[in-house]
């Protein structure tokens, strides 16, 4: 009962906050100047993801990318501008269905960028599929999402089934580890990834362990890792557990390479693990900023910082929808347009298979150096 209430309080606060900003959400962007030509549909695209709350950073990085795409479009079509409608889910699956309904009821919305996370995708996507409203996610990586037969589902990045093998490959070929220890956090995401890595690495895996989310003391796991003599550790999980885990391992004198996935690609991991985070390898299907220099420069000019995790993917998702609007598509015809789409984006060639997965999948390796996450290139 205690934990239910712990959720209920922030939810109530969140609901209040949502109610308060709901009315201004649509006007946060400059509204379409004039009606212009009769053909102008006064269309909107939706941004569905966490824009406030603990996971807001990720949503805002995506939103910045989307805004940049909108600027480009509106510059080219000054007489028929497209506006952005925000659906701030706070990353919370329980809020997602109501927001999905809101988007579906607004007939001006012809497509959605998002939902950003896998959990909220699962909750919102059935409604989108039923309404025929296309949604392109720039960040939700759970492989099972593509297996639901949602005709409106598209994903512009590789899912976890491609990230796991890439992580295994990196450990084998680049780290050249001979003894690998694998730990997961028993979550759908973490265990899924860790199991793929275990399978791919086969006999080089010298030990396994499972921890729990919210665990902070890893004394027994640390002993298991150091006793196994492992020279690399793969952890499938998120940054709140990754930070104390590596900190306690380094305190115990373990010198091997710490390898994690996109769930840890987050500045808070470095802030909390500090010196212990140095040298950590992070795999991510997200494209590093320097792959698309033009995009990087434009992003920097507008937001005064480098593009971050999934900004480029957000830009690409929005661009596909905007191209559809330019081609005169509306909500009903947009699905087929996206399905047939085949153009280079800033992150990769944008073309989808029958399930809505992007066909050109790339996974990149990043490294923590000097308290920053820097790209060390694609894992090929």
């Amino acid at each position, binding site marked *: 009962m*205690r934990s239910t*209430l*712990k959720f209920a*309080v*922030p939810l109530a*606060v969140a609901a209040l906050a949502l109610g308060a900003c709901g009315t201004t959400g649509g006007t946060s962007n400059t509204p379409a100047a004039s009606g212009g030509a009769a053909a102008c549909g006064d269309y909107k695209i939706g941004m569905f993801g966490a824009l406030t*709350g*603990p996971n807001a950073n990720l949503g805002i990085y995506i939103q910045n990318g989307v805004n940049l795409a909108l600027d480009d479009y509106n510059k080219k079509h000054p007489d028929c501008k497209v506006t952005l409608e925000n659906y701030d889910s706070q990353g919370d699956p329980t809020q997602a269905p109501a927001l999905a309904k809101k988007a579906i009821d607004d007939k001006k919305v012809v497509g959605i960028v998002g939902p950003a996370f896998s959990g909220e995708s699962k909750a919102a996507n059935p409604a989108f599929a039923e309404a025929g409203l296309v949604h392109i996610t720039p960040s939700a990586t759970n492989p099972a999402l593509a297996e639901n037969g949602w005709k409106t589902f598209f994903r512009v990045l590789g899912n976890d089934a491609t990230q796991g093998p890439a992580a295994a490959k990196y450990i084998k070929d680049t780290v050249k580890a001979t003894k690998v220890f694998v730990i997961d956090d*028993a979550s759908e995401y973490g265990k899924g990834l860790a199991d793929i890595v275990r399978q791919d690495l086969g006999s080089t895996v010298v030990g396994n*362990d*499972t*921890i*729990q989310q*919210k*665990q*902070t*003391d*890893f*004394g*027994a*796991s*640390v*002993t*298991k890792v*150091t*006793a196994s003599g492992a020279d690399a550790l793969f952890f499938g999980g998120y940054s*709140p557990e990754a*930070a*104390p885990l590596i*900190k*306690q391992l380094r*305190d*115990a*004198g373990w010198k091997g390479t710490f390898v994690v996935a996109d769930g840890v690609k987050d500045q*808070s991991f470095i*802030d*909390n*693990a*500090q*010196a212990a985070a140095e040298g950590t390898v992070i795999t991510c299907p997200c494209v590093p900023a320097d792959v698309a220099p033009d995009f990087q420069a434009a992003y920097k000019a507008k937001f005064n910082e480098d593009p971050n995790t999934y900004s480029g993917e957000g830009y690409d998702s929005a661009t596909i929808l905007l191209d559809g609007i330019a081609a005169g598509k509306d909500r009903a015809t947009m699905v087929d347009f996206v399905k047939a789409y085949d153009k280079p984006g800033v992150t990769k060639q944008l073309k989808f298979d029958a399930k809505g997965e992007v066909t050109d999948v790339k996974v990149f390796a990043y490294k923590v150096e000097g308290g920053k996450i820097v790209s060390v290139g694609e894992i090929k």
Partner: protein
Amino acid sequence: MQFLIDNFWALTITGLTLGAVYALVALGYTLVYGVLRLINFAHSEVFMYGTFAALWVVMFLGGKAGGGTGQVIFWIAMMFVAAMTMSGLIAVLLERFAYRPLRKRNAPPLIALISAIGASFVLAEIMGLREKIVAWVGLEDNLRAYVRNSRNAVGLPDIVAKEPVFTIGGYAVTNVDIFVIVGAITIMVILDQFVKRSRLGRGIRAVAQDPEAAALMGVNRDRVIQVTFLVGGVMAGAAAVFYLLRIGITRYDAGFLLGVKAFTAAVLGGIGNLRGALLGGFVLGLAENYGSAIVGTEWKDVVAFVLLIVILLFRPTGLLGESLGKARA
């Protein structure tokens, strides 16, 4: 099993350091139970506030890696001062506003228990929403470093370099390991002597034994209860510093699971018994580590609670029995 034998000392030392934290927090549960027959479920939050106070004072003093020995000692001393003050204050306020008004109206114990659970939420959520609360009063610019991302974990700067001091059975025991274990035991010996010898300690034992007789003998019951909460809070503050040095991060909900474990330790040792809390804490810390080694880390909590049930089956009053009121406490 072979793994446990091969790494016996590593598991023992890390188990004892965590057990020391459990034991210090368990003292708070045990003391309050002794005088009031109340499980103070908000005690986990008293501990959590201590961790934040210790963290903030290091941030405020600009603590960072690579300080000189004198500086490190100063930072740690300030952590103790800040955490003990904060936790002691929160514990006393809890007693004053969540329990005393109920006691004055002779509310049944169950009501006080509900009040404890409610106070626990309120305290945890205030910490979890501190970013917003600070913004309401217009201080967000001054306090940003202390309150930003208030629902995420916050890390203690690496003020202490953990260095191996000696090796036992293949495990390099670090300066922090020694500090935590020796420090916790020292604090508990002081507390034990305080309860045994001082005038206030005698008052605590008197109220625990028979509140009415104690009142007739001129013991100010409210005062004794207040002191009990204060002492429990101060112990939780010390635990918070050891926890931070050992684990390195804290969060607004860090108290919950640790509180449950510490309460378990208190029951394991015999609730109401100070030495029992110490023993229970260490036994629990060790059992968790040994259990993780034998059946897997994901069973850590299961092992702890199965152990509790087994021990209570054979010794319903815990390892050392209930005895705050008895002479040997």
